[in-house]
């Protein structure tokens, strides 16, 4: 559990540092959303204890995070196209 917590903190710190140092662009935000998905997966599987749970429980909550991340990446693409 302690290792999972350390990984989650490192991912959160890396995401914030990346955006603060490199700015908001699709190149920095796509890795941030990938890290968000990985964090969500760790919370669901390890903090909530669903690693051995049914398929629906294991994947339902991560699917919610995945849907939002895809929507956010979609927004990035649309606003990028409008701007160019």
């Amino acid at each position: 559990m302690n290792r999972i917590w350390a990984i989650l903190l490192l991912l959160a710190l890396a995401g914030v540092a990346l955006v603060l140092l490199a700015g908001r662009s699709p190149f920095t935000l796509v890795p941030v959303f990938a890290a968000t998905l990985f964090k969500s997966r760790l919370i669901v599987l390890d903090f909530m204890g669903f690693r051995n749970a049914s398929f629906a429980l294991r994947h339902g909550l991560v699917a919610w995070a995945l849907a939002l991340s895809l929507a956010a990446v979609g927004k990035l693409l649309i606003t990028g196209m409008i701007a160019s």
Partner: protein
Amino acid sequence: MEARTLSESGAAPDADAFVLWVLVWSELAAFGILLVAFLVAGIVQRQAFVAAQDHLDPLLAGMNTLVLLTSGWQAALAGRTDASRHEQRRSLVIAAFFGFLFCAIKLFEYRGEIGAAGEATYGVFFELYFIITGFHLLHVVFGAVILLLVAWQPSPTNVTLITTLWHVIDLIWVSMFPIVYLV
């Protein structure tokens, strides 16, 4: 040393599990709709949203991510199958403390943002921002109070119920943070 799920706690009838998951998915649906509305409004009012986001403090919000993840870690420790009653109590109280710390940081953050909120040039950004983050903040306050109440009388079912809800609040913030502050 795995976290205990509701079905494994042995003390939660099916009805409790059902109510819990109705609650969890209601929360996820509500926040999902709000966050999608935020994304769509960000496309429609692109320039206003970009300008308004400059008034946010991603560093403080990032700090709050660490605080909430630490709180979730303590909640997970409280939910372990092999945790003693004393360990459960200690972990729940620490989880609640970090929950309240999250609220304090968030209110401090609001203090710096409230001035810009009234400006019409930012469109609906701050309306949605305060609805989404305020709604989440209320959940954190409520959850932290319940964590303390459960720490006082930690039955297996109650520990599993509140820690599951607490992790959902955590999960919502983890997805909300990049959408509201970074995109």
